[in-house]
């Protein structure tokens, strides 16, 4: 019950981790099914050896959607929740209630999307949901699950992004100027800014799709004057920044792990901050490079191509800064550091193919081939997942108060890392050899059979790596207790106990520079100098309202989806057809909002005596 009502950012972080981890496993199983299907070409009479086209398309769609929206996003948010307030010396985020609401809307959105597996109408339109394939004429209720599920989950992301913007601007400890913020906080800040501008575009686009489907609007229906390409623009105006929303905090995590284990401050801190901001800005200028083959013409293609190439410059700055951070360091290869260092060459390989894809005439060949699949898996798995795993191994002790096993950690690393390259490196060549993406099968003797087989073997190595991580997590429940500062850390979160108390800092710390805790340690001190006398700490009250608000949206989502559906039972038909379900769902949400507005909850205080008792 505690977990349903919590507004504590650390617990919400753990909830995000649990839910995101669960969906990561679901998406991973879908990935394995995809690779299994593609392990062998079609038979002589066109028969598929494992899955039929429809099932494959459903799995392929749900793999992409789940991994991006339900695994990567919440894991990033989990990390931001667990780390950012501690890194800036805050007692919580700016809006704890909103934080909880953000989690629950994401969670119910994700559940709604996956319920489609049980109702039998799974989204089968690709994670990009291009119109008119996603329209009423060409796809079934699955597309409603996609549009409405993501709509609800997207609210959570937007709310979370705003929350972190306000938190980072307003809640920094005394002395923590912007240019003293740890890089993970910086990247979280810029990511939140991108979310603020990118997610509304997705929300609007999904509303258009839903209106087309549910209320016969004509945004994307060509026959009645709509424009199918419009959806592509809306989707990618969101979709391209989305990639940076995910990768920037990953960059941030790498920029924390490398200095800690190389025992050297981050090389070129200010240029790293500048590069992050520049990438965030450019992320909104390049969406149409996903659309070179749409027929935008030479001028648009050339402009978007060159703009895309420009992103290589700030990204290159980052890569070299990381290299020179470990250069001359005293590197300790913990599991976290293994993941973090392996990120550098892997990400560079994903980055250079990104530049290749930015060349419009070359992209005419690459586009929608396995070359693209290889590219974005190098960026998303080789970039985001490797750095998320580095971050998980690094911050786990702080989050859970237990150490993860290092031997198992190294096993998991090598299995996952080798499996990853085995799976995806060869896919570059499949693309160059002309294999299109999103195909459920392929004819034999096109030179693709061996490469696909190898790729599938790699996927099983990755799965084995993930299983070892799971075992490690389970074992850690009984694992050794974590000290406050297990890695000789540099930033504020390591100056407080593991796991941190609910109020984080008994007294807000005084920050004297970048790597605040490291500075104190170098001066021979064991802890931060407090910036305030010990006093009672104000805490927000837990609340169940966010849970019910999101539940209301979830129910309303169902109501809208099935309002035009023919049920066998007249009773159910009436409930849905007359919008009773939809309206009651919204009513639950609005009643909760009303309660929240009229009932003034001032929270409570933890008194000084209590704080002293805890030591």
């Amino acid at each position, binding site marked *: 019950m505690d977990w349903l009502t919590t507004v504590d950012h650390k617990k919400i972080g753990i909830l995000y981790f649990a839910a995101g981890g669960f969906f990561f496993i679901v998406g991973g199983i879908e990935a394995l099914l995809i690779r299994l299907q593609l392990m062998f070409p079609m038979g002589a009479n*066109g028969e598929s050896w494992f899955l*039929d*086209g*429809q099932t494959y*398309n459903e799995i392929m769609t749900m793999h992409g959607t789940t991994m991006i929206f339900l695994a990567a996003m919440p894991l990033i948010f989990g990390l931001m929740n667990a780390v950012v307030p501690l890194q800036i010396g805050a007692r919580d985020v700016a809006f704890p209630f909103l934080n909880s609401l953000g989690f629950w809307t994401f969670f119910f959105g994700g559940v709604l999307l996956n319920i489609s597996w049980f109702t039998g109408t799974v989204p*089968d339109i690709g994670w990009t949901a*291009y119109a*008119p*394939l996603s329209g009423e004429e*060409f*796809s079934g209720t699955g597309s409603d699950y996609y549009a409405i599920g993501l709509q609800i989950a997207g609210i959570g992301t937007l709310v979370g992004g705003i929350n972190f913007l306000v938190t980072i601007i307003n809640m920094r400890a005394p002395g923590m100027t912007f240019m003293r913020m740890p890089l993970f906080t910086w990247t979280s800040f810029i990511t939140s800014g991108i979310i603020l501008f990118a997610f509304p575009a997705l929300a609007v686009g999904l509303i258009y799709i839903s209106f087309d489907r549910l209320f016969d609007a004509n945004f994307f229906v*060509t026959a009645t004057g709509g424009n*199918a390409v419009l959806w592509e623009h809306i989707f990618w105006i969101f979709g391209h920044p989305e990639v940076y929303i995910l990768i920037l905090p990953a960059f941030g995590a790498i920029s924390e792990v490398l200095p800690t284990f190389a*025992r*050297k401050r981050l*090389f*070129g*801190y*200010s240029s790293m901050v500048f590069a992050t901001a520049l990438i965030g800005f450019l992320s909104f200028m390049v969406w149409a490079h996903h659309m070179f*083959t*749409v*027929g935008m013409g*030479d001028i648009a293609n*050339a402009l978007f*191509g060159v703009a895309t*190439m420009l992103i*290589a410059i700030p990204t*290159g*700055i980052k890569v*070299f800064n990381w*290299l*020179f951070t*470990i250069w*001359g*360091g*005293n*590197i*300790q*290869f913990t599991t976290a550091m293994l993941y973090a260092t392996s990120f550098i*060459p892997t990400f*560079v390989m994903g980055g250079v193919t990104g*530049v*290749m894809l930015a060349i419009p*005439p*070359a992209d*005419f*060949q690459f*586009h*929608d081939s396995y070359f693209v699949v290889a590219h974005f898996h190098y960026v998303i798995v080789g970039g985001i997942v490797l750095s998320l795993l580095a971050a998980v191994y690094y911050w786990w002790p702080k989050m859970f108060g237990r150490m993860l096993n290092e031997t198992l950690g190294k096993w998991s690393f090598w299995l996952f890392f080798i499996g990853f390259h085995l799976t995806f490196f060869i896919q570059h*060549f499949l693309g160059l*050899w*002309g294999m*299109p993406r*999103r*195909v*459920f*099968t392929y*004819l034999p003797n*096109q*030179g693709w059979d061996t490469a696909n087989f190898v790729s599938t073997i790699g996927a099983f190595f990755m799965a084995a790596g993930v299983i070892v991580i799971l075992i490690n997590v389970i074992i850690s429940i009984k694992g050794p207790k974590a000290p406050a500062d297990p890695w000789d850390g540099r930033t504020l979160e390591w100056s407080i106990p593991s796991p941190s108390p609910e109020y984080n800092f008994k007294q807000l710390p005084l920050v004297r520079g970048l790597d605040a805790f490291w500075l104190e340690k170098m001066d021979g001190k064991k802890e931060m100098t407090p910036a305030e006398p010990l006093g009672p700490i104000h805490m927000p009250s837990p609340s169940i309202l966010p849970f019910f608000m999101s539940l209301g949206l979830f129910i309303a989502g169902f109501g809208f989806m099935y309002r035009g559906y023919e049920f066998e039972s007249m009773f159910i038909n009436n409930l849905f057809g007359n919008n009773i379900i939809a309206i009651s769902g919204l009513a639950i949400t609005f009643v909760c909002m009303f309660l929240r507005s009229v009932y003034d909850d001032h929270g409570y205080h933890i008194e000084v005596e209590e704080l002293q008792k805890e030591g």
Partner: protein
Amino acid sequence: MVFSLLLTGCSLVGQGSNPIDPKASVAEEQYGLILLSIGIMILVVIVVFVLYFYAIVRYRRKPGDDSIPKQVEGSHKLEIIWTVIPMILLLILAVPSVALTFSQDEDYSEDPEVIQIKATGHQFWWEFEYSDLGIYTAQDLVLPVNQRVQFQLTSSDVIHSFWIPAMGGKMDTNPGMTNKMYLDTPAEPGVLKGKCAEFCGESHALMDFKVVILSEEDYNAWVTSMQTPATTVDADVSSGEELFKQNCMSCHAVEAGFPGLGPNLTGFADREVVAGYLEMTDDNIFEWIKNPEQFKGETVEMPAIPLDDNQYHDIVKYLKTLKLE
């Protein structure tokens, strides 16, 4: 290593479905840019890898070494170097990219020397209209050697993408719009593979087509025979013809001058494949017309006509006579 893999790729993959084994000028120009970019990117990767491996080997922590290295803030000189050099590399890449982006976007729609083809994507087959000749084909795109072809690309339902890897890159076919793209044909006769490259639904993977490149004379002969009306059929396939007329003719034309709701079947028996990808055997034709859903799923528009097996066999027999002179 990458180059050697690329080369093995070329030898592994036959049949001209390969962007890095270009058969005609547009694809060759694109391949040139691909090679240039791969070259530059390998250079970048090598620099990073050398620095990286040196750093992780040289600066490993030795057992018992608890020293704290010098805390370096940064270096303006280095920062400038790794900002300026990538800019120069990008410039080297950007100039030919932009040039080719413009030159390959030429429009030859009004050029009488250029073959005009309107290609329309359907779930899940391709229709080709030879605008100047007034003939329609489906699944097999027949072209002469050494010719420039201007395509007008569109779709009748969802977005598809028209791709002949060995001849050049792809272009989407959007419903309600027409995209233009030109390609050149190879110098040698042969059969190339074409594909749908944009996810278009259940049987997207099966939406292949063939590009048949003929010598100048063969092509002209093909055009003439396409324009000649179908000859009368033998008596032993007349029942098949009758069944075809009753059940199939409303969608499938057997004369090249007519479009149809389904693929035009003129010269059907000359084609290499059934339904775009199945081997051309009597069994496959039989199974396909008996139950198209079994192959291309529920969303396929071709209905299964309720006939008995003998009647299907009669239709197969009739279809096998649809040869060009």
